[in-house]
């Protein structure tokens, strides 16, 4: 500093110097060694360096030729075939490592990049072999442990406010909370279809929990996930988010994570066991139309019942079927179908599943003779276009052979309903009259197990609101309505409906009306998963909330379905077992055993009397909980029984014997409960009486102190005169 001289010789600046010392980056982390560089002589040096610098710059690593240092073999007058590059920062060095490693410089030379420090590290590596430590084997918890419950109870999950509870449900004394997990910040919970896992949807993705201690089992990092869908055998998971996938820089890489290639997609398919991402899809862009926005279809990817294929429809164009687990397009081409609207896979019945199992066994053992399992089937429909009629087509897959086609006319809309065993297919066809003023409904029923797939039509005059097959049965129920208010829903309007049951008439091989229940308000049909029992509910109405419990085999005392009702008692076996009312009910769900029914009023729909109730199949209310901010009630599904058909038949045959032990348990239970209750009551009464005696004594003492005010309490007798008219005779005197 000119003009300012200070004698600072004796001032110690070392502390300040230490404080403000600039840290020079002494490390060599920003130096990279490039191997496999062409060996050249002096004359080509400048050109080579310029070319290398250009290549690096192309990939976004800005270096100058000056940054390159090429060691030189002076004896040979040639380069040594490698060079060093100094980058400005470690980050840039990393970028170069990522982008320039394995860079094909020319036909013969492929660059190999290494960090300078790494070379040193590897050179100094200890060469002696150290045996890796074998990790201690720890047995994982059994994910289906809940099925081994000695009392055979079912579980359900409730979600209220921010609190999730997993409950046991059995006899009144056996109902208890199984687990209260500490899950936070999630949208909702969902069970996997066989009940193995419970999934929670978080901001970061999906998390699966399971096992007796409810440990985290798997996670799928799909940010802002909104919807999920498991494949039927719960091997795969489909997730959907409204926001397209964005992979931020520095995001973890690996098979379990979304990669930059997936950016912009909405749907992801994951392998549940490994947690690996299999593939992502984008949602088809809806063409901008004036028509009101259709609700998004979910599940968007439909699984074949054996988890072998997954298919999705591109409206109006094609159905694309992907194979699992590779997720490649099956046969490398989609099913091109002009105008296709919707499709549905045929579910696998118990029989098909056994066939498939024996089939795969047969192929592995090489023996023949096992029954060939039924091929997967799917059904789709196309609407009327120009002169072409609407068409429902049943095809086999993977053979892609058309099995059955049916032309339909004047079609507004089709809905496809498979019976859960894959025995029947019902196509609910909403048709319009020529003038298009009024609509009516046809049910086209395909009998899929029979030769040539015969189709039969049930014609109805009314609009069908809901259709439901009896699980494992030959019956179905429909809710139909001709209410003028249909189609213009408003507050306080409850649509009058009719409920009808139909059954397959074995003799004539057609579906006949069993019974029709006229003028109700029910709008939901819930069959028991075991068939026979059905609940009709009025859901989503602010005024009505009835539940009706029906038994369709009331007269057949557990003789089984085999006995076909004779002509004269057709429909006579239908019996109303009971009815109930759950105000504001929004969800009705059977437990997997078909013994109990749960109804819930969710705060997601309205805020009146939220909570849930559990009923038995007879319509008796067993439990009712009114809870503010109650959101979700879901029974834990059960996997298919492991008992063979023969074993099941044995049990059914000897039901009396089996039930005896349970009856004894019940009786013991009951007396136990009542004894406890009586003891509690007795204690309460004793406490009360003791307190009363004490306070009475105190009162007497007090009275003794104060002068008795009323020495002789005179009691006034009040007489009440009651005039009762025994008989009144009016006489009219006629003159």
């Amino acid at each position: 500093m000119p003009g300012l001289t200070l004698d600072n010789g004796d001032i110690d600046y070392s502390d300040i110097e230490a404080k403000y010392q600039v840290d020079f980056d002494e490390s060599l982390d920003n130096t990279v060694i490039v191997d496999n560089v062409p060996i050249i002589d002096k004359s080509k040096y400048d050109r080579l360096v310029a070319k290398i610098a250009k290549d690096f710059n192309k990939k976004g690593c800005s270096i100058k030729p000056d940054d390159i240092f090429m060691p030189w073999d002076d004896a040979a007058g040639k380069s040594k075939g490698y060079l060093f590059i100094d980058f400005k920062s470690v980050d840039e060095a990393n970028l170069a490592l990522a982008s320039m490693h394995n860079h094909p410089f020319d036909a013969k030379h492929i660059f190999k990049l290494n960090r300078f420090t790494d070379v040193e590290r590897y050179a100094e590596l200890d060469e002696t072999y150290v045996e890796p430590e074998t990790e201690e084997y720890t047995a994982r918890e059994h994910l289906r442990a809940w099925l081994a419950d000695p009392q055979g109870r079912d579980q359900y999950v409730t979600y209220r406010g921010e609190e999730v509870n997993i409950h046991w449900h059995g006899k009144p004394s056996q109902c208890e909370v199984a687990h209260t997990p500490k899950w936070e910040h999630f949208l909702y919970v969902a069970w996997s279809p066989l009940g193995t896992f419970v999934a929670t949807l978080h901001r970061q993705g999906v998390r699966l929990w399971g096992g007796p201690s409810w440990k985290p089992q798997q996670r799928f990092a799909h940010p802002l996930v909104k919807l999920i869908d498991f494949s039927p055998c719960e091997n795969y998971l489909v997730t959907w988010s409204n926001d397209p996938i964005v992979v931020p820089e520095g995001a973890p890489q690996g098979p379990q994570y979304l990669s930059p290639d997936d950016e912009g997609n909405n749907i992801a398919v994951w392998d549940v066991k490994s947690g690996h991402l299999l593939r992502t899809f984008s949602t088809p862009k809806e063409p901008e139309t004036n028509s009101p926005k259709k609700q998004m279809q979910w599940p968007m990817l439909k699984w074949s019942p054996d988890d072998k294929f997954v298919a999705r429809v591109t409206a109006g164009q094609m159905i694309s079927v992907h194979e699992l687990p590779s997720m490649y397009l099956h046969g490398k081409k989609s099913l091109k179908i002009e105008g296709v609207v919707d499709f549905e896979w045929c579910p696998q019945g118990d029989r098909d599943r056994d066939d498939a199992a024996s089939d795969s066994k047969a192929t592995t053992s090489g023996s023949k003779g096992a029954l060939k399992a039924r091929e997967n089937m799917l059904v789709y429909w196309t609407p009327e276009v120009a002169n072409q009629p609407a068409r429902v087509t049943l095809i086999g897959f993977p053979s892609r052979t058309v099995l059955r086609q049916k032309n339909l006319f004047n079609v507004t809309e089709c809905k496809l309903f498979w019976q859960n065993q894959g025995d029947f297919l019902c196509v609910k066809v909403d048709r319009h009259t020529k003038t298009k003023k009024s609509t009516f409904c046809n049910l086209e029923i395909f009998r899929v197990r029979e030769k040539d797939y015969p189709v039969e039509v049930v014609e109805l005059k009314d609009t069908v609101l809901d259709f439901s097959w009896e699980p494992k049965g030959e019956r179905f129920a429909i809710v139909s309505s001709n209410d003028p208010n249909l189609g213009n829903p408003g507050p306080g309007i409850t649509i009058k409906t009719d409920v009808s049951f139909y059954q397959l008439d074995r003799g004539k091989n057609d579906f006949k009306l069993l019974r029709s229940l006229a003028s109700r308000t029910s709008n939901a049909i819930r069959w028991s998963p075991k068939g026979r029992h059905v609940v009709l509910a009025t859901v989503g109405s602010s005024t009505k909330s009835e539940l009706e419990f029906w038994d369709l085999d009331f007269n057949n005392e557990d003789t089984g379905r085999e006995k076909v009702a004779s002509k004269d008692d057709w429909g006579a076996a239908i019996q109303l077992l009971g009815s109930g009312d759950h105000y504001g009910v929004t969800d009705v769900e059977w437990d997997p055993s078909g013994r109990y029914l749960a109804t819930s009023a969710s705060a997601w729909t309205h805020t009146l009397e939220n909570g849930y109730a559990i009923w038995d199949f007879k319509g008796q209310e067993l439990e009712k909980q009114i809870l503010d901010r109650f959101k979700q009630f879901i029974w834990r599904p059960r996997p298919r029984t492991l008992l063979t058909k023969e074993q099941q038949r044995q049990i059914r045959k000897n039901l009396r014997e089996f039930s005896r032990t349970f009856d004894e348990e019940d009786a013991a239970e009951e007396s136990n409960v009542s004894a406890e209750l009586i003891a509690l009551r007795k204690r309460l009464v004793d406490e009360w009486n003791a307190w009363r005696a004490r306070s009475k004594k105190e009162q007497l003492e007090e009275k003794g102190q104060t002068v008795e005010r009323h020495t002789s309490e005179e009691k006034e007798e009040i007489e009440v005169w009651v005039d009762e008219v025994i008989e009144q005779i009016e006489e009219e005197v006629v003159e």
Partner: protein
Amino acid sequence: MRPILLQGHERSLTQIKFNKEGDLLFSCSKDHVINVWYSHNGERLGTYDGNNGTVWTVDVDTESRFMVSGAADNTLRLWAVATGKCLYTWEFPTAVKRVAFSADDKQIVCITEQRMGYQCAIRVFNINREGDGTDQSEEPAFMFNPIGSKVTVCAFTLTPNVIVTGHESGKVALFNLKSGEEILNNERAHMDVVTDLQLSADRTYFITSSKDKTARIHDIQTLMVIKTFTTETPLNSAAIAPGKPYILLGGGQDAMNVTTTSLRQGKFETRFWHKVLEEEVGRVKGHFGPINTIAVHPGGTCYASGGEDGFVRVHHFDDSYFRAKPYGDLEIED
């Protein structure tokens, strides 16, 4: 038995009260009128006219000679039960919300509202029972302003010059009348306004109801909560049934919300709870508005409820009520 519907009021009921023998039922309402009825057949015996505002409260002495009422016209009136004549009128700066006779009929306590700059006040008057009752002293025997949350309900205890009060904050307290001092309190007896307070027959315990959806039985000496009855609706009134181990609760959502929800939502039923076991034993439907006040016949043979809908319903208990032992043979002291 069919309930007797008493249709003598044009507006919502505020309080109903049986006399000591239970043959008469006094009812007061927002329509300025006090009615008296024969409880056994629902016949109206007469009215007490003269109030110029909502009558908030009534009480009758043990001899059924005098009746006292408090109203929104800022008056406290003493009536002759038999003739319907107003014997004496006290005037205050604010409305009278609650009145009560002492056990010996010689004193009445009244609570006046905290409004227009006036504090909530408790006044006690000595009643001159000599003569025709018109000769009363204008000045209260005691008067004080309780500190803190205002008083909503009160009653005389057995101890001379001690009253029990329920407060807006949910507090229950004992006050010495002479000094105006709080002897004892239970700040957390309820979480919301105490809406009613009724004594047991022997005045050794009392029941309170509150907007916090609970009713509680307290010991009058220690103010200890003996029993708690938790319902799912705000409660307006609670009464103790003599002879049977039941208590009666009435309430329903606030009148201001009634029109926006359905009848079943309102929960306008009288609920019967077991006093000792704290379990609900039954409900009686009927009112189509919240129940404001409940009273039980001192003999335990009938009860009456008064609702926001303007009706009083008198229910005489059936034989089955007396015969039924829903919990078996439990001997419970009254």
